[in-house]
Structures are given as structure tokens and as C-alpha cells.
């Protein structure tokens, strides 16, 4: 039986196991939306296409499945750009379907035409313009395959309206054949053997974990690896939640706002084992003084990440899960040496413990004012262990990274690479859609919240009980911090002059609004929010000019931190 292009699309999505899509209708996707009424796939109507893409992204990060978003051509499609770039920078598997003007009109500056293939080429893993209905099923199959395999990433499929309306026999290919795309999953055994030798010879090793650990679902192997060799482990912003931060081997986050002991340990280390990380400038600081004494082992599925920013002594290309498993197997053969290694590393662990005692993460507590760090600590204390936390971008994001102890994998969703304000709320929405019964909390600043606050409507409409904690400092805090430290306190355009009544805003959408203005109200507000069904905004009037510390000034080495005390 023949099907229309839009039916074929939806059938393909169903066969790919898609249960929920996020999107926004318009003229060039109206056929898809019509057929959606007859499809088992659930559609969530966001209030902005950027939010739809972030929601699909949050869904993907929380579940590990491919997130799907739909937008119409022209403005709908261009609204997706920030969402796509956000997912691309953090390697999130997604398929974005955009409507396009009918093929005969392409190139004519038709109404609501935008060259999405051109616009998204540098921010997608791959993209397709479907020019013939015969290719549609194959392209959708390939899009999902490319999105989820290798180093994952977003794939955009631009689907002209006439193709959606055309008819063709539907056959879903069962195999994908791409002669130019064969990601290498299996780590080279000889390289792994060399790595084991280097590890056994190390006296000051540090494991440095990035977002790849979550993407490859290798948190268990990672834990086993760290425990086997008893080596300290530090995480990037994207690595957080892949290893329990309460674990004695955890050094917390490294880099610009990393812990003192993590940055000192990396600087002093003799072996850095990089696992699914990419040596981003926020992590390395000044390259010349980054881990100057260390040999570097770099394990990554993407060869382009290796030796891009730093020299590497031993590259291992492969899936982390595969490589870590092989490393564990080989380590098992060196039982005695591994036992010796564990003992030999005792002085190293002790040295790090001293750094940690000297300069623990901390802040000056206050009885009068609400300290933002205190709110994060309370949220951590009062939330469930499997709660999913999302953030926006700014100081609140860094405090969350520092003061919230993530235990379970895929519980921390944040825009690491692009640093997109407005990400957290729609991402929380997507995560909550995937896990309706888990706690999902967006930790936000007052600035970021207003970049996608319209999603309150979506939350209320779909009964998604996301809890939103706004650390309201009435500033674009992170930029204000830079202005304070590097621009003589000239607060150019960072003071949000207009105080917002967030309680009323919540109520306008049919959500609940709560407010805490003193430290002793904090706990009660959080408890009340968690006990309240449906979405809740908790507004915390926090101390306005608090800074995120430690801080490595731009261009400095990561051991040159501005410290809290």
C-alpha cells in the first residue's frame, strides 16, 4: 500500500522506537501534524521551537535515546538553530525534522523559505534535504543511525512540503549502508596494553572524565576502573554525574571553576587518563602549563578530539565501554602489580587530601542573607537521589556543579559546550516527559529563566511537574562577576533593573509560585515545592554580589586560582 511522505515519516519514527516528539506546527509541516492525529506518537507542543529542540535534547540526555523535534520552515526552522548548536557541542543524539517549501520553489526566496541545510551544516553531525520521496525512508533510517552511533550528534532532515504530500510504497530498510561512515568502536588491544603499562608505572595518576562517559553509558566500568587502580578522578562539567561525587576518589570538577584539589592534582600529576573528554579551554586554562609533568592517555571515540588541543602520548580510539572493559580485563591479569600500585598511590591520595583540607570548596555562610550555594546544598540534601537536575547558564550553573553531589548517571543536564542560557527549563520539560514520576528540577538564574519562561505553559498543559529554583540575584550574575573582577565593577547592562514577581508569573500560567527571602525559609520552601503537585517556581532572593570561586582567570594556568579564602 502506498503512503504519503508525512505518513512514511511518522511510520519511520515509530519503527525507530520514538514515543514522544517535541514541536511546533506551521504551513510546511501541516501534513505531518494532520497525520500525527492518527499516530501513536505523543507530541508535545512547546511554545517556541528553540524550546522544542532543547526539550528533545533533555529527553535524549536523560534517556540515552534519540530526541526528536519538529518545526516548520523559515522562522520555525531558524528558531531551532540555538537548540541544534547546543546539542551539537555536547554530542547529543537528536533528529530534527524541519518543513521546507515545495521543491519547485526552493531557491526562489519563497514565503518562509530558509536554507536550513546551509545554516545548520556546521552545527549538525549531518543533514539532509529530501528531494525525492523514494529516498525518504532511507534518509530517516540513516539520520537516526548517524545521530546515535559513533560520537553522537544532531542530524537535521529538511522535508519539503510536496514530498510530504507525494505517495510512495513504504519499505523501511533494515540495514544502513554508508561507505564513508564506519565509527570505530573497538579499542586497539596493543594500545590498551601500552596504557596498562603506563598506568602501572604511574605514581601520580589522575582520571579525567568528560561527557563521553554518559554518552557511552560506561559509568559502571568507569567506577570499577577507578576503584581497581584507586586513582583519583576528576570530571568536567559534562562528566559530572557519571561518577558519584560522594565517592572518596572523586575530586569534583576541574577547570575554570573546578576545585582547588582537582586543579592542583592535574597540575602535579604524572599520568592523565582522559576518558571521553576533549580538553576544552574551560578545562585546560593556559595550555602551556596544563598538566606539565603528565603523560597523557586519551580515550575517545572521535579521532578529531585527540591531539586537537594538547599533545597526547597514547591515543586510544574507541567506545569507552569497550576500552574500559578491555582495560579491566588486562588489569585483572596483573593482579599483583595492581595491588602494589594501589599501595604505591597512597602518598598521592594523601597529598591530594591535604590540598582538599587546605582549600575546601566553601563559602561564607550567612544568617541574614540567602547564600546561593546554601540553596544548592539544601536542594541536594532534600531531593531524591535519582532526581534529574538541569541548569541554565551562569553562576547558578557553576554553583550547582560545585555544591550538588551527583550520584547517578544522566542526572545532570546542562549546556556545557555552547553555554546556552534558556536551556534548562525546556530540557527539564523533556526529561520530565521521559520520566513522569521522577523529580526534575531546573536550577536557574533570573536572567536565564526569562529566555524560555514561556515553557511554563507547556509544563502546565502537559502536567509535567518540573520544579524550578530561581536563584534571583537581579543580575546577569556571571557577567557581573567578570565586570567586578576585570572591569573595575563597571556593571554595564548586567543589572536587571525590573524586579519580576515570579510568584505571579507562575500563577498566571496556572503553576505554583513560592518565595524565600531569608535563609531559614529556604528549607520550608523546597519541601513545600516538592510536596506540591504540578510545576512550581521557587524563587530564592539571594545575596546579590556573591562570586563563583575558585576561579581561574582567562589565560591563566589552572593552578593559578583566585580562591575563596
Amino acid at each position: 500500500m502506498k503512503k504519503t511522505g508525512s505518513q512514511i515519516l511518522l511510520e519511520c519514527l515509530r519503527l525507530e522506537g520514538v514515543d514522544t516528539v517535541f514541536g511546533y506546527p506551521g504551513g510546511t509541516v501541516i501534513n505531518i501534524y494532520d497525520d500525527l492525529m492518527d499516530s501513536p506518537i505523543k507530541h508535545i507542543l512547546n511554545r517556541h521551537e528553540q524550546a522544542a529542540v532543547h526539550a528533545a535534547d533533555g529527553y535524549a540526555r536523560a534517556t540515552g535515546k534519540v530526541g526528536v523535534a519538529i518545526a516548520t520552515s523559515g522562522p520555525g526552522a531558524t528558531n531551532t538553530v540555538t537548540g541544534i548548536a547546543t546539542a551539537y557541542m555536547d554530542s547529543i543524539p537528536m533528529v530534527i525534522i524541519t518543513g521546507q517549501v515545495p521543491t519547485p520553489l526552493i531557491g526562489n526566496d519563497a514565503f518562509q523559505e530558509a536554507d536550513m541545510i546551509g545554516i545548520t551544516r556546521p552545527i549538525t553531525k549531518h543533514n539532509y534535504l529530501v528531494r525525492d520521496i523514494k529516498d525518504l525512508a532511507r534518509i530517516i533510517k540513516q539520520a537516526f543511525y548517524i545521530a546515535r552511533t559513533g560520537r553522537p550528534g544532531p542530524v537535521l532532515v529538511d522535508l519539503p512540503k510536496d514530498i510530504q504530500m507525494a505517495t510512495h510504497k513504504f519499505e523501511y530498510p533494515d540495514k544502513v549502508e554508508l561507505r564513508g561512515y564506519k565509527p570505530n568502536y573497538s579499542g586497539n588491544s596493543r594500545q590498551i596494553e601500552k596504557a596498562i603499562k603506563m598506568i602501572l608505572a604511574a605514581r601520580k595518576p589522575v582520571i579525567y572524565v568528560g561527557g563521553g562517559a554518559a554518552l557511552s553509558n560506561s559509568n559502571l566500568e568507569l567506577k570499577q576502573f577507578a576503584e581497581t587502580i584507586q586513582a583519583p578522578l576528576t570530571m568536567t562539567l559534562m562528566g559530572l554525574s557519571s561518577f558519584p561525587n560522594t565517592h572518596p576518589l572523586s575530586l569534583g570538577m576541574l577547570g575554570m571553576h573546578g576545585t582547588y584539589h582537582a586543579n592542583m592534582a592535574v597540575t602535579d600529576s604524572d599520568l592523565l587518563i582522559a576518558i571521553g573528554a576533549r580538553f576544552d579551554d574551560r578545562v585546560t586554562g593556559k595550555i602551556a602549563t596544563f598538566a606539565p609533568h603528565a603523560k597523557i592517555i586519551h580515550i575517545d571515540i572521535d579521532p578529531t578530539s585527540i591531539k586537537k588541543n594538547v599533545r597526547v602520548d597514547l591515543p586510544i580510539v574507541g567506545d569507552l565501554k569497550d576500552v574500559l572493559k578491555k582495560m579491566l580485563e588486562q588489569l585483572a591479569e596483573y593482579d599483583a602489580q595492581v595491588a602494589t600500585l594501589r599501595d604505591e598511590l597512597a602518598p598521592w591520595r594523601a597529598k591530594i587530601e591535604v590540598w582538599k583540607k587546605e582549600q575546601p570548596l566553601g563559602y561564607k555562610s550567612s544568617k541574614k542573607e540567602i547564600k546561593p550555594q546554601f540553596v544548592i546544598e539544601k536542594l541536594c540534601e532534600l531531593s531524591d537521589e535519582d532526581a534529574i537536575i538541569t541548569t541554565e547558564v551562569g553562576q547558578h550553573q557553576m554553583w550547582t556543579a560545585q555544591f550538588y553531589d551527583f550520584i547517578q548517571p544522566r542526572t545532570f543536564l546542562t549546556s556545557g559546550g555552547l553555554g546556552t542560557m534558556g536551556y534548562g527549563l525546556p530540557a527539564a520539560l523533556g526529561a520530565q516527559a521521559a520520566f513522569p514520576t521522577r523529580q526534575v528540577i531546573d536550577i536557574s538564574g533570573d536572567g536565564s529563566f526569562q529566555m524560555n519562561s514561556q515553557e511554563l505553559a507547556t509544563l502546565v498543559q502537559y502536567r509535567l511537574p518540573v520544579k524550578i529554583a530561581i536563584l534571583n540575584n537581579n543580575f546577569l550574575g556571571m557577567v557581573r562577576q567578570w565586570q567586578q573582577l576585570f572591569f573595575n565593577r563597571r556593571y554595564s547592562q548586567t543589572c536587571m533593573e525590573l524586579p519580576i514577581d515570579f510568584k505571579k508569573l507562575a500563577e498566571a500560567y496556572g503553576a505554583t509560585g513560592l518565595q524565600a527571602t531569608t535563609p531559614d525559609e529556604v528549607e520550608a520552601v523546597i519541601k513545600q515545592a516538592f510536596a506540591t503537585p504540578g510545576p512550581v517556581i521557587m524563587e530564592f532572593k539571594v545575596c546579590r554580589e556573591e562570586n563563583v570561586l575558585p576561579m581561574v582567570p582567562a589565560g591563566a594556568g589552572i593552578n593559578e586560582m583566585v580562591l575563596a579564602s
Partner: protein
Amino acid sequence: MKHTISVLVENEFGVLPRVSGLFSGRGFNIESLSVAPTIDPTISRMTIVTSGDERILEQINKQLNKLIDVIKVIDFTGQDYTEREMGLIKVNAEESTRAEVLRIVDIFRAKVVDVTQSSYTVEVTGAPGKIDAVVELLRPMGIKELIRSGPVVLGRGAKGWKTQ
């Protein structure tokens, strides 16, 4: 240092901007780029002349390989290969200079492919250095227009590229 890279790509819609966009987006140089289909019509072959240090070349190679439509990449630097470029040069040919132009054409085994009362169009093929030389020698006569194809290369020996 200069590098000549051959890239086999899917002969797909929009593949050229994927490659050129990669170079511009990441700040890599392109000195020349030529592209045309191969004996297999589903595959095109690009020859790219670029420059950079070892680290940059490694990135260029890896980044090209990362593109879904790229099937194979070969950096010919340090390998045995044949390199050819074509130049078409429209040069003034007045009474007084015609003979000299023809002499140069003859020496370089070039060809005159178009003649008017005041000009010759010279076709010259060879290694890029040979084209440079002809251009330099013709320059005093007055070059009206010049186009170069950019080099194309093929490895020496009996072995061809496997694409599967």
C-alpha cells in the same frame, strides 16, 4: 608546508560546501580545490592543496574523514605521485611578439588553442611549476587573462584506490 590531498566523496547534493565549509569554519587554508566525478559516477574526487604544520594537517585529515560523505582521504605528501595542472593564458600577440610567444609555446610543449589578430590563447599542462614558468615568460608580452585548473594528482604504480 604545502600538502596535496585527494578526497573521495559521495557524489551527493551539497557535498562541496561540506568540505569547503569545514576548511573555512576551522580556519584551514585552501590554495586550490578541484572536483569532478570518477569512473564510478556515484563518487567524486577532490584534489585540495592546503598548507599547515603537522598538527593542522592531522586535524584536516581527521576532520575530513569525519564528514559522513567523505569515503577516503589521502595526503600525498612524501609519496610518489603524478601531479598535473592546466593553465589557459590569453596573451598579447602583436607583430613584434608573436614569434617570441610561439617560441615559448614550443619550448614548453604548450599549444595555441585560440588566435585573434592581437592575441593567442595558450594551453599548457604540467606540474604547477611548469605553468608558473610559462606565465613568467609570457608576462612581459602582456597577459590579458589567466586561468589555472589547480593541480590534480594520482599515485604512481599499478595499484588503484579501493573505495569499498
